[in-house]
């Protein structure tokens, strides 16, 4: 018989407000095996923990039940407390009487009754608990960063600077991500390329960083400290090791009409191309959809002009297998498609553009070499209308329900820069709310209004109608003046909502990292563990976790790196002792468990058994590798004989809980 101590927490009034904690500790004190029962204001406080520790020593407790908040909150706290008092930490069970009782019920007798039942279930389970010892598994001292935008770059640099090897996998031919397409950055108006490209070069030159550009993650196996990743290096038909990035090929390629994705299709590139001048690695890539040589074998000009002999039309996708201790997701974002927002006329007029397109139009390396010209006729626009919240904060199903967070600030930046360069333009910004909570952000926005004379109008644009003469008729409401405005604009810029990159969802499945309904990666705790995924060993950097501007992305990237460094600095990880275990005497060796194990933790061995008639018989039995097993329990149900059981969540423990809950009539 166990000697069990019960500790009921008030959690201030969080629990005690709806649950009669004294009645609970009194009722539970009469349960079999309970030798000590007490209630206290804050069990998780130091004084509360000391109560537990003292009781363990004074009453020789072999089991502890804490009736408190969710075990997801403080299970570890109490396990540590128990351990420090000499009790095996896995002899502690938590009855969740806060999140799953006091906070959802209003009526005290009902909530108290339920709390007692939950307490009984925990006591019933503790009776069957056995001390468990955590095992150890080694840590591979290399990190993988998926995505080579500013988030991935910063994380990789920080990890590498701490002395650990880092691989960056980037699906595009160059690292740099969205930031390479930006012109200036708020709130200081630095040139994006000027602050980003040195970091890209640092990555390329860092002896600890290895860049897999034009590559994708194909398969992920393993677990924290021991991930096995297959990386697909897509065929770029150019030998990376030979190409010098001289650009001879891209100048000579006869296929000229390929829409240039770097400039969002506003100008053209060749079939063999280097995305932009500062690309890292500066290596050409052949687009097989357009290259004549790859399509029909007629051309081969680039191979002829390449002095380095780097062109390889026969190149195939390559698969590289690498091992990592930690994985950082930095897959970033994209603007949404505007198909659902035809009222803004994006598909009808070339002069209705997205903000990212506007960035390219004002960038010196862009299609207009930095002069702001209308895409339709190449003339200077004189009236520009910026529309905010296009597709953001939209619950109608057309757009995204969340605030995209970066639009207010970049729109202020666009409006300000336009007025600075072209003081003769009229600039209108239609806003619902201006959100500028960052450091120096509101001052920045106010400068656009006060110093640069941008017309900020509270209200939304309802319709943009292109007129035959090329003007855009903008119909909008001015809510403060109480009028409907009709503006003849030359250019309309839509602050398009952003969404996670499409590759994030399949990646999350591979990583078994959870996502929210918008396909943003979920963090382990919204406030306290913002850069970790709930899946151990997976970390989050940048906009893959939620919309973020550059300063926030860089801070998060550094935070993720710090977490990775903390992990890689360990030589060994203690493993979860709640793993499956096979009882050889009962095992049939049927392989059902092995089939459902996602980690390949189960192997079979032939073992000799003594039979009742004193003969021996060799039987095939399952054996679980506790370092690999993650404790899901799939095998326990696949096993018909019940030979496979899960420590900490055994068949008899769960059934004891079921019995305790169902007992009350």
């Amino acid at each position: 018989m166990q000697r069990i101590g019960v500790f009921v927490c008030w959690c201030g009034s969080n629990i005690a407000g709806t649950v009669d904690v004294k009645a609970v500790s009194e009722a539970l004190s009469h349960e079999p095996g309970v030798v000590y029962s007490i209630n206290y204001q804050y069990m998780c406080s130091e004084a509360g923990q000391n109560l537990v520790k003292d009781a363990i020593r004074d009453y020789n407790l072999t089991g502890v039940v804490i009736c408190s908040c969710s075990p997801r909150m403080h299970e570890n706290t109490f396990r540590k407390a128990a351990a420090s008092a000499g009790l095996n930490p896995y002899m502690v069970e938590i009855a969740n009487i806060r999140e799953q009782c006091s906070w959802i019920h209003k009526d005290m007798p009902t909530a108290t009754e339920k709390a007692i039942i939950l307490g009984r279930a925990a006591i019933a389970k503790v009776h069957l608990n056995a001390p468990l010892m955590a095992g150890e598994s080694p840590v591979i001292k290399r990190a993988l960063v998926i995505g080579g935008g500013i988030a991935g770059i910063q994380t990789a640099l920080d990890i590498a600077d701490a002395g650990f090897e880092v691989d960056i996998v980037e699906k595009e031919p160059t690292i740099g991500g969205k930031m390479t397409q930006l012109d200036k950055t708020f709130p200081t108006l630095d040139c994006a390329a000027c602050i980003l490209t040195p970091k890209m070069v640092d990555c390329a030159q860092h002896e600890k960083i290895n860049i897999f550009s034009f590559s994708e993650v194909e398969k992920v196996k393993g677990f924290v400290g021991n991930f096995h990743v297959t990386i697909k290096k897509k065929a770029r038909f150019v030998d990376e090791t030979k190409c010098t990035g001289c650009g001879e090929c891209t100048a000579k390629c006869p296929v000229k009409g390929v829409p240039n994705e770097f400039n969002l299709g506003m100008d053209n590139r060749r079939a063999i191309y280097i995305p932009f001048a500062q690309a890292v690695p500066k290596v050409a890539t052949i687009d097989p959809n357009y290259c004549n040589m790859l399509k029909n074998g007629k051309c081969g000009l680039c191979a002829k002009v390449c002095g380095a002999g780097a062109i390889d039309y026969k190149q195939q996708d390559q698969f590289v297998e690498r091992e990592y201790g930690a994985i950082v997701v930095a897959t970033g974002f994209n603007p949404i498609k505007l198909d659902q927002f035809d009222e803004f006329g994006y598909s009808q007029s070339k002069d209705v553009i997205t903000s990212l397109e506007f960035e390219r139009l004002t960038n010196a390396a862009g299609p207009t070499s930095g002069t702001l010209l209308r895409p339709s006729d190449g003339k200077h626009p004189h009236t520009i209308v910026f529309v905010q919240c296009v597709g953001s904060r939209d619950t109608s199903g057309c757009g995204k329900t969340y605030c995209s967070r970066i639009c207010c600030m970049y729109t202020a930046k666009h409006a300000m820069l336009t007025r600075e360069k072209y003081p003769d333009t009229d600039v209108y910004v239609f806003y619902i709310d201006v959100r500028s909570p960052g450091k120096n952000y509101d001052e920045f926005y106010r400068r656009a209004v006060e110093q640069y004379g941008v017309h900020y109008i509270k209200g939304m644009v309802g319709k943009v109608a292109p007129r035959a003469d090329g003007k855009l008729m903008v119909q909008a409401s001015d809510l403060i003046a109480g009028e409907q405005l009709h503006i003849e604009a030359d250019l309309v810029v839509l602050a398009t909502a952003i969404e996670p990159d499409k590759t994030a969802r399949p990646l999350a499945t591979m990583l078994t990292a959870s996502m929210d309904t918008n396909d943003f990666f979920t963090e382990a705790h919204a406030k306290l563990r913002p850069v970790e995924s709930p899946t151990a060993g997976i970390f989050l950097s940048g906009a893959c976790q939620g919309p973020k501007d550059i300063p926030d992305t860089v801070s998060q990237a550094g935070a993720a790196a710090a977490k990775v460094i903390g992990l890689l600095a360990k030589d060994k990880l203690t493993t979860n002792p709640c793993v499956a275990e096979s009882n050889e005497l009962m095992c049939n060796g049927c392989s059902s468990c092995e089939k459902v194990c996602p980690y390949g933790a189960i192997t079979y061995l032939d073992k000799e058994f003594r039979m009742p008639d004193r003969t021996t018989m060799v039987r095939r039995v399952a054996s679980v590798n506790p370092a690999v097993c993650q404790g899901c329990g799939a095998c326990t149900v696949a096993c018909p004989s019940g030979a496979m059981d899960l420590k900490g969540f055994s068949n008899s423990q769960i059934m004891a809980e079921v019995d305790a809950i169902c007992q009350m009539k």
Partner: protein
Amino acid sequence: MPNEVKAFKPKIVAFCCNWCSYAGADLAGTNRLNYPADVKIIRVPCSCRVNPMFILRAFQRGADGVILCGCHPGDCHYTTGNYYARRRMTLLFSMLDYLGIEKERTRVEWVSAAEGAKFAATMNDFVETVTRLGENKRLEDLRCKE
């Protein structure tokens, strides 16, 4: 005073996977979303840990409804656990139905860690359904008592 008929309070056992649904239940609590106290949650590491034996045992001990909550298919913390759970439960529920047991007493619902509201709504709905069905007698009565 005539004896008042005591309103039927069903006994509901909810198995919740540790990573999604248990967290979803916690979120329902954090957001103070109400659902009946008849629901008692048992934490399991994954929906695939739930053995049909547990469900039958609950009914044997007088539960009126059993619900299993796990991560959405594709989101399992252990990659594939809920896919197996889905097959097992589909077959088990179909069998119970085949035996003439009210099929509404069993349910599987996928609740993510972000879906506190869904958790509460699911529980409200399930309790309502089971309350309407009344006490669970059939599984027990499948064999005549005498």
